[in-house]
């Protein structure tokens, strides 16, 4: 019997090693898998490359990982926010490397990795600082920049419901990067608010089919907390 359910967040992240690349879902705190990140911090590994839209908000999640000094490099679109003080401090101290990627290119590069594409030509960023030094091409009279896929050893994502085969559905705008990160990582670990029986999720509405998900851990939902912009 295939059962991707694991007993705890600690067990779910037990093989994440120092130096690993780790995608973390979430847009701000919506969809951020805080408990998986807490377990990763508790494991004590460092030198991580983190892929997330932001670079931490407030004190929890990615912010806590940065505060703990575990992140060598972050690939993101919007690091600087009113509550990104842990990233700001680490960046100004030269302790963290930043690769800034336009948000849509971040999504497209993650999706390209998950889809097995060699690279993509994207119009976003053409003629700007973020395309400097990159190959460009004119196709049908429009200019494009060559961007390479972003893959990772692990993805930590948050979904609403899952089953033992790894099928997932999400909740509202907490979906954000979850489905594409699940495709782009070697090992995808989903924390879900509820694990349900096989067949209990209507197959017509499965968002991430189980083939993209290796581990599922049930963690009671903690969605309703405020955050700053």
């Amino acid at each position, binding site marked *: 019997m295939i059962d991707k359910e694991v007993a705890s967040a600690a067990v779910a992240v037990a093989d994440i090693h120092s130096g690993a690349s780790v995608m973390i879902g979430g847009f701000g*705190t919506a969809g951020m898998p805080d408990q998986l990140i807490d377990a990763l911090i508790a494991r004590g590994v460092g030198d991580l490359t983190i892929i997330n839209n932001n670079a931490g908000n407030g004190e929890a999640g990615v912010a806590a990982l940065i505060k703990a000094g575990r992140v060598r490099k972050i690939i993101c679109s919007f690091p600087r926010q009113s509550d990104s003080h842990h990233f700001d401090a680490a960046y100004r101290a030269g302790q963290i490397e930043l690769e800034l990627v336009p*948000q849509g290119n971040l999504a497209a590069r993650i999706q390209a990795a998950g889809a097995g594409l060699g690279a993509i030509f994207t119009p976003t960023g053409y003629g700007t600082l973020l395309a400097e030094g990159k190959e460009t091409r004119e196709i049908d009279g429009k200019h494009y920049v060559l961007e390479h896929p972003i893959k990772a050893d692990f993805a930590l994502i948050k979904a609403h419901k899952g089953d033992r085969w790894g099928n997932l559905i999400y909740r*509202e705008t907490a979906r*954000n990067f979850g489905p594409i990160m699940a495709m782009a990582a070697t090992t995808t670990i989903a924390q879900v608010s509820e694990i349900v029986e096989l067949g209990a999720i209507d197959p017509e509405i499965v968002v991430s089919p189980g083939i993209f998900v290796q581990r599922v851990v049930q963690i009671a939902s903690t969605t309703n907390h405020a955050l700053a912009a």
Partner: protein
Amino acid sequence: MYRLTRDQMAARVARDIPEGAYVNLGIGLPTKVANYLPQEREIFLQSENGLLGMGPAPTPGEEDWELINAGKQPVTLLAGGSFFHHADSFAMMRGGHLDICVLGAFQVSVRGDLANWHTGEPDAIPAVGGAMDLAIGAKQTFVMMELLTKQGESKLVETCTYPLTGLGCVSRIYTDLAVFDVGPDGARVIEIVDGLSIEALRKLTGLKLAASDEMQPA
């Protein structure tokens, strides 16, 4: 000299958004446009973090922090609205499905180059978010901004000095003093506030501005 308030600017932009348009309103000043969309028009608001059919802010106490907009503020979803992941969201822009995007700006050039993501100061921590995707993705990109900086410098310029967000992507600029069309042929004034002459506007901006034949008071 008469100037439009920020709310009047928002109302002016809203007038140009037609029934059935798919629209993304950027963070900051453009979000005000939502307050002035005519009730009788059905207009679809997209938020790039993954929703279409965005409704107004929830009543206090009803906030759901998994239902937020791109500014990470709680919102609501209209009946008929939908959720989707980030790759689909940005395909809506890049793929040319979004009709109108309204953005703020530091500078816009007369050819429609946009600078709105980075001041270029060496100690600034850069953050781009969806600005570059939005600027080049929508069928029409509108900019909404005060025409002059606090120091009185024109933000409509011959050539942007701030780092660019996108090349030739803006088609129209709504300001507190005038409305402009911009593009390969340069800037053209299509509306101007009462009491301001085209000559005075040319002096304020330092630009050779063409005037539309049908130029109207804003």
